[in-house]
């Protein structure tokens, strides 16, 4: 039997049901590993609460009332509000904030029997691609990690904004974590830390109790070790929440694991297409083709001295070749407007953030400046003290693009191109069942390397933004390591509500490869 902390969600759930071990034993093991807060992954831990939940799970297992994931631990990104743990959203403005209620996603996972390990570090209000924007310190990537008590060694970033979630799963501090994805915040850290993560169709998981960043983009999803685990977690997290989230889809929840075992055979993807033909994987030529100029700039091969871009491309091409050998058909598709996702996304998300974050005024909750002359001054000082630089930048951009005289040129134009991007995907899906490509142009970079250059961080989001803008389900699966030993992730994008098929496609790959099982050295 594997070590408890090295088991997947599926293995833990099965072992707990069979009473091979107890929920308290499992929780105790993970709490011990979390001691000293490795990688600065956690922002709040209450072992008494966790152990009490585990004890309750053991009671339920004993009396036969266990939920499907009874006793399996999970940690939550600090974007989800929780009654029993503090919620900061990675911001000083919410220091010591305690929510009077649990987010729907949190309560659904509790109902499924999951035990909460704590709250996970993230970029402030989920704004960032490196987890360096957390007010509570950066998170380090467990891959190529060098313990350095003096903090003089530059380790790698875990990606962001769900950096704590990805690092915790990769370092086996938790078997699973929740994440949120606005423009790639589940997929990119999952890729950078060598784990599996899925963002479902916008509206599948309730946004109730998720601290709002960009409401038309924010979506919750699971991050774990395999597609199989993600399917179990997604089934427990999703479902209509019609009275509490106006954008919750009125679609019955699904068992997202139902297609995992289908179809089997020598060439398991040969009959996985909707029409019973081979699964058709669309590869956008702008991302990987000969004319790709978006990130793999063929005109500037020396653009990057370490050559990691080319390595990412190679890993993706190898994975695609593997898919072809499993019976899938590779089809070239086009996403002509995808390059515009960067300006479109950063205008839309900034506009929505500037509105959403107006609630932080020092009146109803959170930080309030100590000294001020009047109400306006109180607002200004409170917000200036409470928000970090990236949050302020986005609020400023949002205020600008929504202001009189600029609204049409920026915000409205961005919304129009957003539709063009969504329509590009529908044209592509006429030719294929899923779309595959890189998650990020590079592997994880080192702490501080892009910290002073917000635009460089924005540009690194090029491959994750299009599916976010369209609201499509999408995931990241590990497809190997770079020469430096840093994980590379492949992105899979499905059409609306096709999560089960997406997970099947990922699972097929993971059944015959071991990339998702790789563990960072020293873990």
């Amino acid at each position, binding site marked *: 039997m594997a070590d408890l902390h090295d088991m997947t969600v599926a293995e833990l759930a099965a072992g707990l049901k069979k009473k091979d071990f107890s929920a308290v034993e499992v929780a105790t093991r993970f709490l011990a590993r979390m001691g000293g807060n490795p990688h600065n992954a956690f922002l709040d831990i209450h072992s008494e609460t966790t152990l009490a939940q585990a004890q309750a799970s053991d009671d339920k297992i004993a009396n036969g009332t266990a939920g499907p994931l009874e006793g399996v631990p999970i940690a939550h990104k600090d974007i989800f509000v929780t009654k029993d743990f503090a919620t900061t959203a990675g911001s000083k403005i919410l220091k010591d904030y*305690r929510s*009077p209620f649990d987010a729907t996603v949190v309560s659904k996972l509790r109902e499924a029997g999951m035990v909460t390990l704590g709250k996970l570090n993230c970029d402030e209000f989920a704004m960032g691609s490196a987890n360096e924007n957390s007010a509570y310190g950066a998170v380090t990537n467990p891959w190529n990690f060098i313990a350095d008590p003096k903090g003089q060694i530059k380790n790698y970033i875990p990606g962001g904004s769900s950096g704590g979630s990805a690092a915790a799963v990769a370092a086996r501090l938790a078997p699973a974590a929740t994440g949120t994805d606005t423009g790639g915040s589940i997929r990119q850290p999952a890729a950078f830390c060598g784990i599996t993560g899925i963002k479902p*169709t*916008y*509206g599948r998981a309730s946004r109730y109790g998720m601290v709002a960043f960009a409401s038309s*983009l924010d979506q919750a999803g699971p991050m774990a070790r395999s597609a199989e685990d993600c399917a179990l977690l997604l089934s427990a997290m999703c479902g209509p929440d*019609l*009275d509490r989230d*106006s954008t919750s*889809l*009125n*679609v019955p929840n699904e068992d997202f694991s139902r297609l995992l075992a289908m179809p089997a055979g020598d060439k398991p993807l040969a009959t996985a297409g909707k029409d019973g033909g081979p699964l058709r994987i669309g590869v956008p*030529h*702008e991302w990987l083709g000969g*004319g*790709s100029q978006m990130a793999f700039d063929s*005109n500037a091969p020396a653009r*990057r001295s370490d050559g990691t871009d080319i390595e990412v491309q190679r890993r993706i091409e190898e994975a695609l070749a593997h898919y072809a050998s499993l019976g899938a058909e590779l089809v070239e598709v*086009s996403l*002509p407007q995808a*390059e*515009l996702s*960067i*300006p*479109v996304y950063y205008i839309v998300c900034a506009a929505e953030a500037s509105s959403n974050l107006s609630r932080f005024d020092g*009146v*109803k*909750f959170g*930080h*309030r400046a100590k000294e*001020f002359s*009047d*109400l306006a001054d*109180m607002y*200004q000082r409170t917000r*200036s003290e409470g928000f970090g630089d990236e949050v*302020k930048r986005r*609020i*400023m*951009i949002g*205020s600008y693009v929504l*202001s009189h005289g600029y609204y049409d040129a920026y915000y409205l134009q961005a*919304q*129009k*191109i957003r*539709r063009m991007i*969504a*329509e590009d995907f*529908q044209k592509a899906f006429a030719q294929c069942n899923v779309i595959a490509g890189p998650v990020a142009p590079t592997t994880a970079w080192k702490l501080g390397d892009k910290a002073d*250059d*917000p635009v*460089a961080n*924005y*540009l690194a989001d090029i491959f994750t933004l299009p599916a976010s*803008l*369209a*609201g499509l389900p999408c995931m990241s699966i590990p497809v190997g390591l770079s020469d430096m030993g840093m994980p590379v992730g492949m992105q899979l994008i499905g*059409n*609306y*509500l096709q999560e089960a098929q997406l997970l099947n496609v990922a699972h097929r790959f993971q059944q015959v490869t071991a990339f998702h099982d790789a563990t960072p050295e020293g873990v």
Partner: protein
Amino acid sequence: MQRGRMLHRQCFVDRWLISGANGREKRRASQRRDNNPSPLKSRIVQGAAPRKPPCKDRFFHMSLTSHDIDRLAQLSRLQFEPPAAERLLGQLNGFFEIVEQMRAVDTSVVVPMAHPVDAMHGLTAAIGDTDALGMTLRLRDDVVSEPNQREANQRSAPAVERGLFLVPKVIE
């Protein structure tokens, strides 16, 4: 920031913003001539090497000024010390450089998409009957659904007295 991309981007911006105040007019005229509503699109689809236009002058179409920063800070209820304001100005102008490529796209017949749920409409062939699937934005009935939790809700407030939120004096 990789130098290569930075230069590429800068040239790209310049290409559509033919220097000078009437750049936009010139751009429109050239689009009409070419009957090419989206120069960016054609560049990507053809997969051709981007032309390298003269890139001598750094030209910012809509460069923000420190006055704009003050005004936006006021609208955003934020304050910036002079060094921070200056840094922010440079960063925002850097961002709006990449925004410029967006302005060259012809969207005259495109309906703005505020929301993904909106994009799911009419995709019956691909994903089933979207209306039956409830893919419309909805409002709930205007009825009380939450119990009164004033105490719990005010627990994290910075200043409360007798169940009321305290704010600085607003009316003299």
